[in-house]
């Protein structure tokens, strides 16, 4: 049995990550949420250097709250992925000039670098930064870390042991195969997305209690052990509460005026950029892994082929539920809600109009990019009913859901600004 102290031997020795961790801790210490804690220990761990015993006891693919030990473990690789997302998106000064946002295959190119050459690509991006830009990128990463840690602090405050920041779809993970589990997940996400105004006009019956679509879904859900449904509902609520804490911690960190007086750009603006980069890249990582499993060739499959795959076999909706996360809010929704709070809060210092516009565009694009998740959740929640109808009819009915491409979302964003 190892203890939190054993993590010291494998804490990251990466000077950039150490500087970012220290900046994040300084920001955290300025928040009342952290000041009210009796104790807080943070370890950014390089698990490649950890002993098997430490790995066994403390491994997390992202972050993990340890209530008994008043600690939070952050996987250095997870932080490096966030760093790459922030630096890659930071190459451009506007969403409209960001090469990765031109089309899905550009984002998938970035995802491939993250998967195949994270170390080398990360170092390449580091060498490109001027001193001024380096300060911005480190502050953005520190703010992302503050958000991740704030989420974990939420778990610590609620006494929720060993909870993570996110449900990832790790490389090689098998996709969901059970209709009941997928339906539970889709219903949960569809209900929540709708409660925040992300709905699909024309599909209201999916959400009507007692309606035939919902009755079919409920019949499938009845096959799940009752405890499983209750547990997931509870965990989902816990995670949403932890997110609220993460956002609160982030907002308090941004209000620490003294800590932002020498920053290259206003903290609120950097926070929006950071949330944008990390959430969008994370979403495309999940999408890449999903598409790769539906069809090995990610690029040619693209969105249109993916739509055809969903139309060809309704069970692909079951598999696709894997991208929405089991106990956590949808990635882009988490970012959108946090961005909204940051944009609505009064900034510690005035933000130039140019930066304000850019921040609003990033927040709006995250919302537009939720198109696929909303459609997947809505159609996924209807899958049980559609399968039932197919069975009654004796033949499947073709149904194709059209997803908006990155290019069309960007041109929509451009039109919004005109």
């Amino acid at each position, binding site marked *: 049995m190892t203890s939190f102290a054993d993590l010291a031997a494998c804490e990251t020795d990466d000077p950039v990550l150490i500087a970012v961790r220290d900046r994040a801790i300084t920001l955290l210490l300025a928040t009342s949420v952290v000041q009210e804690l009796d104790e807080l220990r943070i370890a950014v761990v390089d698990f490649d250097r950890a002993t098997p015993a430490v790995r066994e006891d403390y491994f997390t693919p992202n972050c993990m709250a340890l209530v008994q030990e008043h600690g939070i473990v952050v996987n250095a690789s997870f932080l490096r992925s966030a760093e790459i997302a922030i630096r*890659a998106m930071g*190459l*451009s*000064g*506007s969403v*409209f*000039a*960001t*090469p*990765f946002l*031109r*089309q899905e*295959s*550009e984002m*998938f*190119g*970035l*995802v*491939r*670098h993250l998967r*195949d*050459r994270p170390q*080398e*690509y990360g170092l*390449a*991006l580091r*060498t*490109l930064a*001027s001193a*001024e*830009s380096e300060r911005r990128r480190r502050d953005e990463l520190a703010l992302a870390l503050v958000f991740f840690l704030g989420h974990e602090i939420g778990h610590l405050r609620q006494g929720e042991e060993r909870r993570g920041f996110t449900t990832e779809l790790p490389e090689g993970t098998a996709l969901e195969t059970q209709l009941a589990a997928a339906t539970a997940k889709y219903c949960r996400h569809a209900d929540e997305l709708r409660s925040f105004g992300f709905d699909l006009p024309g599909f209201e019956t999916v959400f009507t209690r007692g309606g035939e679509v919902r009755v079919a879904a409920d019949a499938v859900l009845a096959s799940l052990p009752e405890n499983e449904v209750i547990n997931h509902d509870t965990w989902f609520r816990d995670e949403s509460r932890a997110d609220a804490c993460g956002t609160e911690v982030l907002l308090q960190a941004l209000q620490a005026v003294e800590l932002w007086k020498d920053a290259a750009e206003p903290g609120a603006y950097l926070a929006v950029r950071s949330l944008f980069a990390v959430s969008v890249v994370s979403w495309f990582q999940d999408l890449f892994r999903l598409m790769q499993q539906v069809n090995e*060739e*990610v*690029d*040619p499959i693209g969105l249109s082929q993916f739509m055809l795959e969903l139309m060809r076999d309704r069970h692909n909706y079951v598999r696709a539920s894997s991208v929405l996360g089991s106990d956590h809010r949808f990635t882009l929704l988490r970012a959108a809600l946090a961005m909204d709070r940051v944009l609505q809060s009064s900034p510690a210092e005035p933000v130039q109009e140019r930066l304000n516009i850019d921040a609003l565009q990033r927040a709006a694009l995250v919302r537009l990019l939720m198109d696929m998740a909303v459609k997947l959740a809505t159609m996924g929640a209807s899958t049980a009913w559609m399968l039932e109808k197919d069975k009654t009819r004796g033949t499947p009915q073709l149904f194709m859901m059209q997803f908006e491409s990155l290019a069309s979302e960007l041109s929509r964003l451009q039109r919004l600004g005109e």
Partner: protein
Amino acid sequence: MSNEELRMRIAGEVQSAELARHAKRRSVAAGELFEAILLAMSAEPGPFRQVELTKLAVHCRTLWFEDLALFAFAQAARESENIGEHERASTLMIEVGSLYSRLANLDEAAFWYQRARTAGLAHSCYANAASASTNLATLAMAREDWSAAHRLASDSVDFLCRQPNPRTEAITRAVLILLAEHLDRPIDEALDHARTLFGALAKAPVPEQVRKDAAAALDRQVHKYLSAHPEVDGPTWKHAQLPALW
């Protein structure tokens, strides 16, 4: 691995990237081009590494892999400095600045143009220093810092006296005509630049739009001047001032 073997492997990666791109597998192409850059980086420091990185940078830029092009150009610039090819180094720094400009990252663009200007001046590469300075002037114009833009573009003209470059000078003169309008300078200043732009530099290889914009700005300044001086016979005066244009 010998340089020849490396060259073959780099060519192989580039070829694979081309095949992938033509098969609409752009994300695969991105991975293969990055592998090619890493191979070039694995070569011993020196001219071979510099040449291979430059070739890859140009290739990536042409294919719109800006992240990879930025990295390869920046590394090639560093390599050029290390082997004492200062003129090439400043040219490559300007390429990095231009790419950042394409990505609307004006702070980083300014950083690299400034580096190119400083390096150019330090090693008597005045044409490159002028080009970088004119690019800095256009960035200052984008920030509406007209006086800084004027100073930077005027510096370029001075640098070009030491090492002429018709293209850079034509662009610089056009920029100065636009700036003369913004700064409400005496008409003679814009006319001086216009005489060079439409006279000695009439055949300088610049996009036609550069001359069109300059001519339009000049027309507006002349119109304003003539409105304030009704005693002057416009057509005669204009022809006398700039027969090449009027």
